[in-house]
């Protein structure tokens, strides 16, 4: 496999500065990595001597595991800095933390932070390529890439597909990255959720459809993604109860009947079974939910490979 696009040293803050061709190249590389992950011996020597640093300022065990495993599989040296933002408040600034870590000789950063724009700061302070592993409700581009890969692997194309995303759009970093990526790849995205959990101007900004009625939103969907619904939104005064939310927005066998018969089911996890999705749907044959986790490692391997310029 050759690096036909120039990914070396690129940042992945979000998908807006990546072209459709480049996204396709990532999906292609992911396919190769996925095959590697299915071997008995899963390790490639291609990033030997490179040092990857995960900067996790917010707890996210799954995403951290997935990235670290990806770096391990490519034989990169891996260092981890984790702290929660509240303890950081009192002490060191992000700038000082990053300067300190960078002095140890890092080749690439992977950052998870609860505040939007933090990946850009890490790049500004270090000049090194930065992968955004989620910055507040802003973006989570590797999740979007693994979602797109999971659908594309099944359907062979994203062009013309109707993808419906349901739930708490306002607090979701996953939605925005998916909206940008899926649109670039030619899919039509509809988003659905209560008005109180829907940011303004979604249609103008992302060119997606906005629906407030689940059945209308699901109509003829090729793929459906549920989003995590958190109980704390109830005390924020954004919806009355999980019970009512479930009645209106859950992905169930009944509501999924409005989608295409074999419509794929996705969820970025962790799931609230019985809230945004019912077990009958989450565990059905068409559910890609575990496959997404598998694909996540492959996508992250592909990105590390492309950006750090290894050769297969």
């Amino acid at each position: 496999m050759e690096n036909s696009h120039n990914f070396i040293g690129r940042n992945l803050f979000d998908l807006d500065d990546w072209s459709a061709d480049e996204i396709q190249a990532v999906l292609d590389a992911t396919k190769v990595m996925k095959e590697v992950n299915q071997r008995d011996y899963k390790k490639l020597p291609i990033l030997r001597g490179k040092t990857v640093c995960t900067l996790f300022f917010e707890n996210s065990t799954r995403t951290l595991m997935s990235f670290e495993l990806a770096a391990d599989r490519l034989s990169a040296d891996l260092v981890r800095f984790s702290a929660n933002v509240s303890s950081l408040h009192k002490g060191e600034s992000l700038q000082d933390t990053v300067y300190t870590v960078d002095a140890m000789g890092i080749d690439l950063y992977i950052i998870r932070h609860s505040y939007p724009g933090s990946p850009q700061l890490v790049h500004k302070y270090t000049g090194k390529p930065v992968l955004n592993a989620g910055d507040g409700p802003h973006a989570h581009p590797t999740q979007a890439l693994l979602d797109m890969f999971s659908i594309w692997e099944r359907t062979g194309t994203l062009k013309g597909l109707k993808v419906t995303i349901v739930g708490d759009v306002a607090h979701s970093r996953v939605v925005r990255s998916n909206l940008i990526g899926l649109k670039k790849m030619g899919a039509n995205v509809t988003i659905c959720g209560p008005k109180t959990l829907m940011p303004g101007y979604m249609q103008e900004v992302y060119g997606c459809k906005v629906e407030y009625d689940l059945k209308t939103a699901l109509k003829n969907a090729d793929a459906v993604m549920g989003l995590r619904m958190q109980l704390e939104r109830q005390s924020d005064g954004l919806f009355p109860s999980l019970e009512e939310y479930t009645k209106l927005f859950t992905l169930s066998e009944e509501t999924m009947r409005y989608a295409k018969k074999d419509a794929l089911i996705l969820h970025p996890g962790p799931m609230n079974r019985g809230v945004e999705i019912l077990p009958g749907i989450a565990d059905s044959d068409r559910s890609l939910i575990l496959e997404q986790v598998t694909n996540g490692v492959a996508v992250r391997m592909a990105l590390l490979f492309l950006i750090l310029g290894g050769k297969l």
Partner: protein
Amino acid sequence: MILIKNGLIYEASNKADATGNFVKKDILINGNKIEKIAANIKEDCKIIDAEGKHVFPGFVDMHTHLRDPGQTYKEDIYSGTRAAAKGGWTTVCAMPNTDPVVDNISTVEYIKRKAKDIGACKVLVIGAMTKKLEGKEISEIGNMLQGGIVAVSDDGGCIQSTKIALNTMKYASNFNIPIIVHSEDYSLSGKGQINSGKMSTKLGLSGIPALAEELMISRDIMLAENVGCHLHIAHISTRKSIELVRQAKEKGLNITAEVTPHHLLLTEEECSSYDTNTKVKPPLRTEKDRQACLEGLLDGTIDFIATDHAPHSDFEKEKEFNLASYGINSLETAFAVLYTELVLNNKMDLSFLIDKISTKPSQFLNINCGLLEKGKAADIAIADLEAEILFTPENMVSKSNNTPYINKTLKGKIVTTICEGKVVFLG
């Protein structure tokens, strides 16, 4: 005595809403007053050659955060008044959100004394409406007035309780001073970082809706009408807010408003790269709002321009957007920014601009400034409009350099500032 020779002198028009023009004359200063304005004055004294330069009445800023006492790492009276002088400002009004808050006569006196001792321009003091700006108990407005405050304001904060807002206005109205409000409904603005709109959606930053400002302005106009006091809206920023002020003025209420250079010139689009120098309250709004601010200023709904100079140190801005402080540093840049963007782009005459940064705020404060006439204070700013000026962290006189105009080249350089007959800045 100082004689300013051959400059193009600002002459205000006599008509209320018309603006003046520029004529080539000399100005003779005697002590702290203007003694004479005429062609070819001859006097054996210090001469400033203003050939080819424009001569303005010194600018008057109604809204300045000098950060002194308490936050002098951001700015202090020494640096803030020098930044003002460099920008052509000869009078600034210090906002009371210092530490301690200006809610008592001794803090008023501290600022006035320090400004007199070491300030490069005149500093007027605005007192807090409520103690510690907490929006709970009325501060000692009467005492502070004896100390010389010119207005009251809880700027930086906004009294949320309608009852306390009403009582504070009633109490303050007894003293016939303007009540300046920063209008923000906290329950709506919440943890908002930028304007609630397309950009906040795109950037994943929480938004401050226009409604948070508009609701408070509409409440305060109703309260002011009920009380019969002079209400002044600080840093107005939305189309509907301006509409509310327009309607109130049509009704004949004593309502005035100011707008900042950044709300006249910048929009939420500026925030697209998470540049914390664009983080300010009220937030940079939409293009429609910006247009409305400009129209409001042109048609007189907005009375004048005020800088809302809000210095913050590097460590308060060089961080995650959510953690950065709100505010834009403005005294040094304001004239060049307004001249370059508004006058050179034919949005307004130069004389109109001078009216809005000097004559009108002087009238508002009822001070003997803002005009170049015999007997007026010798507060003068001389500008070379052809000269370019570049603002860099190294050449900023302010202790801070949190402005979106940092490292940008603008036109309209203040070359000399005279305050009370003394040269306080030479560029």
